[in-house]
């Protein structure tokens, strides 16, 4: 993260503190209050989240573990504002984000959050480099993107080199292995210089050693860039790499 952004984040914290949002602890970047979410299957309502309370501190690497189907993805989608909770609140940097209008949520996802998924979710029509640039293309109109293209391309290349994909710039996703796709997805998440990375079973589809490699990258990012990471997984051994582990059981968080 750049210095400028650090100071910006700091001043925002100060401002929120000054505004008297007293219940927000100073170091909490993300906080959920009594989150509820249920899905409707015909006439019956299936509750998935039943009151999730948790805090994530700035720069923390948090792992959420739970069995398959316990609602981990659902929770992560709520955190990433892709879906809205039935009840409860989500605060980011002291500001409530779950009830923001669509354009502001789009803006948040585009500039503040990075997301990676179990199935990588790269766009099949674009090559590796273009996939990494996609969030920036979404952010800018044609002309403003083209005018900054040089800068952005070198940024994206740098990131791809960092995750070890410098030699796969022009490849389409289907020409990459699972581990390579996930690394491209990480580069894509990082290109917007996010402050929070949400990872949904990033190793779920990878073999043991590739998974370990991915976690190593995430760990390094967390340490070097002070990047906050919330990772969900059903794999205990993967979760052990995190600073802190919480368990999602029956729709609630257990330490």
């Amino acid at each position: 993260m750049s210095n400028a952004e650090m100071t910006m984040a700091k001043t925002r914290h100060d401002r929120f503190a000054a505004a008297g949002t007293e219940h927000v602890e100073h170091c909490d970047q993300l906080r959920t209050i009594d989150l509820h979410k249920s899905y409707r299957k015909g006439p019956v309502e299936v509750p998935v989240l039943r009151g999730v309370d948790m805090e994530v501190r700035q720069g923390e690497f948090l792992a959420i573990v739970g069995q398959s189907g316990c609602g981990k993805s659902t929770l992560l989608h709520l955190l990433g504002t892709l879906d809205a909770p039935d009840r409860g609140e989500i605060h980011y940097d002291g500001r409530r984000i779950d009830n923001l209008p669509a354009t502001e949520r789009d803006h948040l996802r585009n500039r503040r959050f990075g997301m990676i998924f179990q199935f990588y979710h790269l766009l099949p029509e674009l090559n590796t480099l273009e996939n990494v640039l996609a969030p920036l293309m979404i952010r800018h109109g044609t002309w403003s993107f083209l005018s900054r293209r040089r800068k952005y391309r070198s940024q994206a290349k740098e990131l791809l080199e960092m995750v070890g994909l410098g030699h796969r710039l022009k490849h389409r996703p289907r020409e990459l292995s699972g581990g390579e796709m996930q690394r491209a997805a990480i580069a894509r998440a990082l290109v917007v210089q996010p402050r929070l990375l949400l990872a949904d079973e990033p190793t779920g589809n990878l073999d043991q050693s590739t998974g370990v490699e991915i976690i190593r990258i995430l760990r390094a990012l967390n340490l070097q860039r002070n990047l906050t990471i919330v990772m969900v997984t059903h794999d205990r051994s993967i979760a052990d790499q995190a600073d802190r582990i919480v368990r999602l059981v029956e729709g609630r968080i257990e330490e």
Partner: protein
Amino acid sequence: MYKLLLCWRYLRTRYIALASIISVTLGVATMIVVNSVMQGFTGEMQNRIRGAISDVIFEARSLGGMPDYEMHADHIRKIAGDRIEALSPMVVVPAMLNFRYGNNWITRQVDLVGIDEQSQSNVSDFGKYLQHPANRQAMSFDLHEDGYDVRDHQSVAEEAPERKQMAYAGWKHRREAARIRTFQRQYLRTEKKAPAPSATSPSADPFAGHSVVEENRFDPAQQQHAGAVLGIALTSYRTPEGEDRFQAVPGDDLKLTFPTVGQPPKAVSDSFTIVDFYESKMSEYDSKFVFVPIRKLQELRGMIDPTTGVGRINAIQIRLKPGTDGEAVRDELRKAFPPELYCVSTWRDKQGALLAAVDMETRILNILLFLIIAVAGFGILAIFYMIVVEKTRDIGILKSLGASSRGVMGIFLGYGLSLGMIGSGVGMVLGLLFVHYINEIADFIGWLTGQPVFDPSIYYFHEIPAVVLPWTVFWIVFGALAIAVLASILPARRAARLHPVEALRYE
């Protein structure tokens, strides 16, 4: 930016969508071709109608006509003189035409038009439609020695077949025909009268007297009757190869029978000599009109006032200066002359029914063809829907990266627009190429199927006339584009409304 890129990539990777656009392409191409050909036909026809009947016609309602041409002409000039280029008097009367073809007399029903050979070509394209070059320069009802066009001078195409019979039309033909007839007559007579030569010899004196009369008698080898210009289709027919065959040519005689102006009218008939053919390429006119000198017709019909020598006429043809509003002149003339006695009409009024019918035909064809493009629109809709379903996960990804619903919608609208542009653009090029090479294509198809597409024996043109109007092309392409965009709105809206989480879960 991502919209453009994805649009472009979808275009490059989804050829099935291009297939859905083929019907748009074909629809656009067909519409352009049909409109151009219809426009060509209409334009050609309008020109010919206008050329044949002048801009405005001032007619008397009764066959007896109006008594004095000069007086009426002066009055007309007073009203609209500044806009009038030329005037010409006319006598029109229904008539029966007879001519000999071999041993048969052929009868046709015609409109007999008495014209003033000096002024007629000033008010209409009459002169241009004649077959002798000298007549096209200055019309005359005198038979020419020879030199009638063997090639249709109005046909641009080189391949129009020659009219071989025209090569010997004129005085040459007349003398030859007269010689043969005299020979035949003598031969038949000598054959019949051979057994009794002595029976006639006593009456040598009256015979001598008779031969004196014969000296003054009409000699077809030296003399001609009053000239007549015939619509070319009255004595000719066209073979399937497009060659014109004539049953009579300039130099032959014919008989015309028509009513006098007496009360009650009586039929009179007289002989005329064909001096030229009139070919406006409007079959309706070419198979209906016979033109003779107005004075001769007036005499025969008894239209000349015995005291003053002034002839009555039926109608005055008016040619207006270029760019004049014919309808305005018509209305002014209508106001100035009592409508019970005079009828004023423009060339458009005269052929209103025909032009309206062609208009109607074009419109219906356009509606049908546009419906075809609309049907193609449903094809686009279906294929787009499939593509949106196929791209559900990608839509989720884009939204998770912060793309707005409008942005996602923009991708698919843009996709529809570009497909529409490709479809109608290619259609436009195809259509224009088709129009450009339409005669070659018609020939080729004719050669392929062994059946001529454009049968010159039916139409009086040797080739298909086609006129491309830029605005028509614009509207066709615009309409096709609009349909492609409309068809992509529904799928695009579906894409925009997809819930990102559902979309991401979609496998």
